[in-house]
């Protein structure tokens, strides 16, 4: 790995460890290897969003050309958000692509992702299904996102009604996560979700 990349990650790592966001448990950063090429990030779901109270883990890969090129970041924790793929965790965020600037750091990336959770951009979606729901069925979207936060990100808000529907499909022999995806995609209409799963 290029010397500047490793040296910078070391400094950034120290910066994040000392930052007040860490003190307030808003963001977290962990090294996955000694070469400073892979890290695990963690952000808290921002208040007044369906992600409130959840903890979202991120996979961070540092390219050799860092900081001249952005880090590769994706969600490990499953999340229901217009700009994050519900399947792969891939993120659509301009600063991780063409708007990256060499003075940005892992701390600014984590804080930007947190801001993305507060303010989705459905017109520039990563997940078209979620983006459609966000635009057309805002309340269903919020319920779904809250449910996913509870199930996958240790969120505090249970959505009993939605859980019951997932159990119903599980009773029909479908795998839990697949059932949840089908129901989420079909705005929690059991009939349509079942058709979706069979087809």
């Amino acid at each position, binding site marked *: 790995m290029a010397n*500047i990349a490793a040296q910078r990650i070391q400094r950034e790592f120290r910066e994040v460890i000392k930052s007040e966001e860490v003190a307030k448990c808003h963001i977290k950063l962990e090294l996955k290897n000694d070469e400073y090429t892979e890290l695990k990030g963690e952000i808290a779901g921002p208040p007044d969003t369906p992600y409130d109270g959840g903890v979202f883990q991120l996979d961070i890969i540092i390219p050799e050309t860092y900081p001249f090129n952005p880090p590769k970041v994706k969600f490990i924790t499953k999340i229901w958000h217009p700009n994050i793929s519900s399947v792969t965790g891939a993120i659509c965020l301009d600063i991780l692509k063409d708007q990256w600037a060499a*003075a940005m750091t892992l701390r600014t990336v984590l804080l930007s992702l947190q801001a993305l959770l507060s303010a989705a951009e459905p017109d520039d979606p990563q997940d078209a299904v979620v983006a459609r729901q966000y635009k057309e069925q805002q309340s269903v979207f919020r319920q779904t996102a809250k449910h996913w936060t509870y199930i996958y990100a240790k969120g505090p808000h249970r959505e009993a009604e939605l859980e019951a529907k997932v159990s119903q499909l599980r009773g029909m022999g479908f795998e839990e996560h697949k059932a949840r995806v089908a129901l989420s995609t079909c705005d929690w209409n059991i009939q349509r979700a079942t058709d979706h799963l069979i087809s």
Partner: protein
Amino acid sequence: MYRQKLYASLKQLFKKNTMAEAAPSSSGAPSSSPGASNSIPDEETNGTYDCNICLDIAKDTVVTFCGHLFCWPCLHQWLSTRPDRQMCPVCKAGISKEKVIPIYGRGSTDNKDPREKLPPRPSAQRSEPENNSSFGNFNMGNLQFSFGIGAFPFTFFASNFNLGDARPGNPSAGTQQHQEERVLSQIFLFVAMFFAIWLIIA
């Protein structure tokens, strides 16, 4: 008079330098923790002179027009990574190789192997201060002036115009020299008019 000006500009230069030296320590003081001693802390400095790309103390330092500090090798690599979109890594202002200013501190890195400095840092631009050049002309103006008086009244108009036109560099408006000359030429004009009227009456 030349000496006086030189002294004044030296004094100004000196004042600037001491101000620049005083600035970091005064601005750094409040941000350091209250318990910290006055000795220079290496890791805990507020990073005023850290490169915005490698986050280390800047080497071969350059500053952009938007005021952001970098090592030249770092900034050069950033600019060559995206040749189509040349922007400041901090504030995203438009920048280019020509639009950065190198910083030369006292403990400059001249003893460093120049090969390590590739690509070369852009050079600074330096223009001569304008005040000095108008000084050489001052005496010439006086000479023409006295000649004008000697040949009066027949060369009055010519000499009067010479004062303004023949000299390459007029003293710029507002300077002391400019005002002195204005007063002199006004007095001269009055005297000339007096003589002219006297000639007509007589």
